[in-house]
Structure formats: C-alpha cells, structure tokens
C-alpha cells in the first residue's frame, strides 16, 4: 500500500488544506504495511525509518482516497508506526462543495440586522447622547408673551 506523508500547517478546521501541505515522501509515495485490524477511519501503517518522516503530521492514502492526521512513533528495527485519524473535511472537500447548506455566520457576508449575541457589548455600559431639534418658536425673552382676556365687546 502506498502512503504519502506531509507536514500540515493548516488548522484542523481549514477545509482545503492543499496549500498548507508540504510532502516529505517522494511524489510517488512510499510503501507501507497496514496493521491489522485495518480501519479506513483510523488506520495504522508501518514504514521504514526516514528522519523526515518522524516529523510528519499528515498523511494521504490513495487506496482509501482519504487524508489523515497522523502521529509517527519510532519503533525498533528502523521502523516507524504511523497512526492515522481521518480528516473527513479535506478528504471530502470536493464533493462537499456542491452540497446545499445554510450558513449562519460568515467572514464576508454578514447581515447586520440579525442580532449577534456574540458581539462583545459591555453589559450595563451605555452611551447617551442628545440631538437638539432646532426651532424658532420658543423665546423666553419674547416681546409680547402675555395674553390678557377681559370681558367686553
């Protein structure tokens, strides 16, 4: 079975990790022997020792068509055990892209009118301002402000 090993600099929740992967194995990959029982989601492989392999944290198994987070453990006899856990997000990124979804938060879209409870508003702190509406009516220094009402025609 062929195995590719990489250094992965992307966070786990990056969907498309292609630009963050640096392959440490040859382009054609390396031979590996899977351990039994074989799991597609959490396989283990034994590979021959190479100094760069032990620093790898990401793998690709063409036979399974999947990418994996991996940890490499040195074994005796010039071997390395590569323990993998599937990265379902990147493994199925291409087919997932055509799925219909509902998005409730996004870096670029944002609909301001939807209340955002995560916005860091300081509780109990408010800003009070005032707008004066200008008018020319009131004038406490008015010249004739008195109205006298008397009887008579």
């Amino acid at each position, binding site marked *: 079975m062929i195995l590719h090993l990489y250094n992965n600099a992307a966070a786990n929740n990056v969907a498309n990790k292609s630009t963050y992967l640096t392959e440490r194995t040859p382009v054609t990959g390396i031979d590996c022997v899977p351990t039994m029982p074989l799991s597609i989601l959490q396989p283990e492989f034994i590979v021959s020792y190479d100094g760069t392999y032990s620093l790898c944290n990401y793998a690709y198994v063409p036979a399974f068509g999947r990418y994996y987070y991996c940890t490499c453990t040195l074994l005796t006899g010039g071997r390395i055990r590569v323990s993998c856990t599937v990265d379902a997000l990147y493994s199925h990124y291409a*087919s*997932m892209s055509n799925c219909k979804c509902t998005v*409730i*938060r996004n870096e670029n879209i*944002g609909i*301001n009118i939807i209340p955002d409870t995560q*916005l860091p508003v300081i509780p109990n702190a408010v800003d009070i301002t005032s707008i004066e509406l200008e008018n020319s009516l009131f004038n406490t220094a008015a010249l004739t402000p*008195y109205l006298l009402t008397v009887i008579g*025609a």
Partner: protein
Amino acid sequence: MAVNESIYGLKATWRTDNFSENNSDDLKHYSANFGNNSGQILYAIRNNKLKVNTPWDKSICYAAMDNGSVFSKVTFCASNGTNAPNVLTTENNALTEFNIGITNRNPYTNKQYNILKDKSYYTTMFWASNSTATDGTSTDREFCPSTSIAFKNMVLVPYVLATSSNTPPIADNDKICVPLKDYIDTYTLTHPYIVRVIVSFYGKTFANLTRTSIAKGIPTVAILNQLPKLCAKLNDINESTPDVRPFYTYTMCRGFIGGGSGLRNVARGINLFGECQTDTDVDVWGYSTNAYLDTDTSSNHYMSAWLNYNKYVHVKNPEYPKKIFSYIPYYNDFYEDVMTQTAYFGMFFTPDVDVAVNGDLNDNAMYCGIIDDSGITHGQYYHGAQNELLKQYSEWSNTNDTPYKSGGTDPNTYRNTSGFNNVINAPRDFNKRYVLSGSDVNTLNADFFAALSGVQTSEILDKAMEKFYVNNPIDCIVSLKWFPFSLPTFGSAQTVKLGVYNTTVSANQYVGSGVEVHNLGECLIYPHFGMGVFGGSGPCFLDYEPYTHIELIVPYCGTVKISPSDFMNCTLRVMMTVDVYSGSCTAYIQRNGLTVDSISGTISVDLPVSGVEAATLDSQVHTATNNFKMAKVQEAMTVVSSALRVATNFDTSKGQMISISGGANALADAVMSTAVASENLANTKYDLEHINVPFKTVGSNSGLNGAKAEQFCSLNITRPVLHSGFNADTYGHTVGYACLENGLLSSFTGYTVVSDIDLTGVNATADEKNMIINTLKGGVYL
C-alpha cells in the same frame, strides 16, 4: 391566490385535458377535478361541491377585468321559451372576475334552463343539454374550470366572422372566418359586416414543437360575478307550477364558428363580440351561449348584444322570421378594440395565427396583456421585446402565480402624510384678548388700582359698577396668561379697556383661530452603528431595540418613547399645536410627514391678578353699620328696661324695695345689662370703623418650571458600548458575522459556520458525515 383544493380537487389530481403529462409544468393546462375525474361543473353541483344557493368559490380567478372589458357589460336574459324573459344585469362598476375553462364539444344547444329531477336548479349557462337529457346526466358541454393555465403555453388568436352582405339569408360563400390580421389586411372592404369575434386558443398540447389549436373542447370564459337572484318561475319537468328558487347565476361565454359547409369547425373560442342565436333549428351561424340583452318572446330565439357596443345593426331575417341578423359595420378602431379586449385576459396573444403557432413569446408580433400588481387587467398590452418586462414572461409560470385575490380590491385609500387644517375660524366669545408686553402688564396693574383711588368705601360699589360694569372690578379680567413666545397680533393697536374704563395701555388684539401650529424641528434618525459595519450591508441590529433606545423630550409636554424600528432612516418632525385660549398644547410626532404619536401639556403660565372685592366690602360696611345702629337702640332699650326692672321691685306704699335681695338683684341686673349694652355699642362702633377691605385674586400661579427648562425638543439616544478591544476584521475572521444565507458550500469563502447541510452525494461513511457536520457547525475556513 391558491386554488381552493377542497372544492376543485387536490393539486395532484388536477386534470391535464389536451395537455400531455410529459409537458413541463409551465406548458400544462390544468382543470379542476371535483372527484369524478372529469372536472364537470354538473358533477360538482350534484355532489355539493358547488351549491346553487351560495356564491362560487373564486379562488380559480387568476385576474379580474376592470370596467372597460366587454364582459363587465354582460347582461343575462333568460327564458324557457314560454315565460316572459327575465333580464339580470351584472353589478355596476364591479371588477369582472372570470375563469377560463373548457367545455366539452357539442355544437348544438337547446333550452336555456334545465331543472333536475332532484330539484337542483341551475342555469344552463354552464352546459346545454339536449332536451332528452334533463336528468342532468348528459355530459354535453360540461364546463371544466381551469385551476392552472401555463402563461408560456397559451397564445390567444382573435378570429373574425364577417359577411359581404347584410341582407339575409347570407350564402356560405359570402361568409369568412379568419384571424384578425388577415381580416384587417384583406377583408375590411369586401366583408365589412362583422358578425362575431371569438378568441381561439393555441398551445403545445403534446410537447409539440409548435403550438396547435386546442381542438378538443371549446375554451370558455365563465363570468363569476354574481347576477341577481333569478326571479322567474322555471319550468320544472316534474312540476306544473314550480317554486321560485333563488340562487346565484353566472354566465359563460363560448363561441363556436361553424355552420355551413365552408365554415364548419373553423374556430372555437371565447366569444368576444357578437350575437348569437340559439334555436331549435339548426343555426347557420353556429351557436354560442352568451349573455343576452333582449329576447324575442315569440319563440325560442335569443339575441345578444354587448351593452357597450351600440354599433350593432339588427336586421330581420326573412328566411327565419323569428331570427334577427345582427352585425357591426367595420370601423377604424375595430382592430384596436379587439386587441384591447383580448388583452383583458392577461395572456400572450397575437392577431397572426402563424405567430401563434411558430412564434416566440418575445416576437414583434406577439403581444401580452398586462396584469397589474393587484391582479387587475385594464386592456393594456406590450409586444415584442417589451413582453420580457412582464411577469408572465419572466417570473410566473402559471396563473397560480398571479397576485389576484378574489373579494375585490382594498377599498381603503392610504395616505403618507398628515396635515393640520384649521377647521375653526376665529371662534368668538364675549371677551376681548390683548397681546401685551411685560411693561404693558405693569402699567395695566397701576391703572387698575388708580381707577378706585380716593373712592370712599361706601361708594366703592357704585364706582365699580360705573367704571367696570361689575360689582367687583377684578371680575372684568378673565385671565392673564404668559406664553414662552410672542403671540401673533392682528390689526392695529387699541386702548385696553376694562369694562368701559380706558387704561393707559395701548395693545394689539389677538383675533386668531385660537390654535397656533408650530414646527418644533426635525432630524433624521440615522443608523449610528452604520451600514455594513460588520460585513455585508444594511443597518446594524445595534441601532434597534433592545440595544438602542430613543426618547424625545418635548418642552411643556413631557417625554415620548421613540421606537428605532419605526423611525430608522426616516425624518422625525415635531409639530405643536397651541390652544391660546386655554394654554394647553399638543405635540405631534411625525414620521416622514405622517403623524404617528402625540403628547399633550400646558404651555402657558397663569398669572394671578388681585383687586378690591368691592361687593364684599360694601356688604361688610352695610353689616357693620346695621350692627352699630342696632347696638344704639339696644343700649337705649336696656337702660329703660333696667329702670323698669328696678321700678317693679320698689314698693311705693312703703317707699322701699319689696325685698332687699330682690331689689338688690334687680338693681344688679339692671346695671349689668346696661353695661353689656354699652360695651356692645362700643364694639360695633369699633367694627364699623375698622372694616378689613377684602381683596380678590383672579387666576393662580401655575408652574414656571417649564419656562426654565430647555426651549427645544431633544432626542436622547441610549446606545450600547462595544468593548474597546473589539476589532471588526479579527472578529469576522475568527467568529464570523451573523447572517442567514442559503446556497452551495462552494459559494462561501472565509470563516463560515454552517447550521445545516445536505451531504447527499458525498461518498463518506456515517461517522465521517457526522464529523463533517460537526466541524462545519463549529466553523471552518473555506
């Protein structure tokens, strides 16, 4: 308006008569399924889906025509051939609600009414049965209402039936039945006598490449406006004297141009113009079940004419004496009239049958009736590329997409602004009002007291009456009010009079309406947190409740709560009306010129005016004087009675008091009562000389606090405070801005939180799909 599926059948059961199931939905024409898979009105009535004594459910109306359509002028005149005709008219100025349906094909008609044996009465306008089928089982000409018509697959073509002769009998060779375009191009001079115009239907019935005439069934328009209840006695086949059964009647207009060897089966459609003759005889003109204006009661002969079409000419037919040959002579506006009336259906139409068969919906010779936003048609139309602007072309796929709702249009007239109209024109009362300055008031005050200066208290009442016309001078002043603004004045300055007393003050009067209207200012309620602050566009939620609060403070009135939701991006204006007579005020808060709230208060300050209360003073003087007089009399009488008492206790025969004690007592009493009387006299004299002069105050102080407050309206806005460390870009990149968008995952970029996703098509295990969903819900970078 959604079709009432409980009456017309579930949508999944609607029938596609003549239209293949293989057609796409925007090519299908559906008709009602009342449960018998035939869509027949007869079935519906017999099974109580539609009742004869209740109005029809009009959810099958996809539009309504205004009063310009010929169908709004339809009158119905019915007779069973032996009884007098009854004329029923449509409701004036009501929108004409209609449905286009299909009738099964049968060229012959017979009596106008049929009564079922089971006493279900209904007009034969929805079908006409042969006389042998009066039990209602005949399917001849059953009307199948349309529940959904595909706009993009229905093209109407007006056909004209005209003759070259107007003298009946008319030979077949003298008749033509051609599309409108052909008639205008070729036949207006040779065949100027227009007998009928019908609108024929073309559509792609079996996924054809071109449209064909819908041969099976005859398109019909059913006018669903309720005619008045039928009053005539109807012939019941089982009863000799049938009861009068009131029920709602409707009319159907269907045209069939046939008859004669040359014109049979030429066109079938909705009868737009023209007369019809229905007779037991074969009618060479074909038949149509129209509404009728007039009848010839001497036979089963009916003639129709559209009420608004007064160009009709009627000629007796000598071959069939009971018939009348009616026609319209060709006139210049005929083409436009036909196009307008066809447009009332709100569908695509063309006068050219070639375009109807082969043309695209935006061809230059393809037209489309305009349906307005309320679902009303007005006989207007577009053509060519303009059709692309219409919703029948771009948005609607079938008649269920129109906005029309039966029940009429909203009868209300809405306005967007409020005004202040002076309905009171300077009300008059028995008072005069003067507008004064502060110095005027001081001068007036001095004049007032000067008027009674030097007057004796005993004469004060007379002087008060002489000068002021009142017992109390102060009573001639009704009120003195102070306003925080200059009052308007009218006319020229006059001497201020109190009663008939001329003061030295000269001032203008106030003779206004009594209510002054003032604009106290306005401002725009602006989204402070701005547009597009957190990505995207549009105002921010922080500008609305419960985050932002707004209060409007109106001087002299108080505080009004302003809802940001109501006023955002709108102009808030405060208008104040002041009642000068009472000093009250009302502030009206307007949103873009429309008054939405109000608050009242008192704007004037009442100032007290004091003066001598002469009447009371006079009364006190009078009382004190009387008391003094009485006291004098009392003293005199007391002395006499004292002496008398002493005398009655003196024994003159013995020259001594009758008894020492009695004599002493009598003397003591006499001395006491005299002393008391003298003291009373002294007291009353003192009272008379020391009367307290009474004063009266008119008005009382009302609060001056308002005058010391701010003399303008102010909007106090309370807003939330964002944390000082908040950075919008970082927030968007790590938390994301709140939104609600739907689409393919590939259409989103950057940090994204998904609430729901359909992973159909992703070849992953169940565990992987759960992992994917959980990761997306927690937020991913795309």
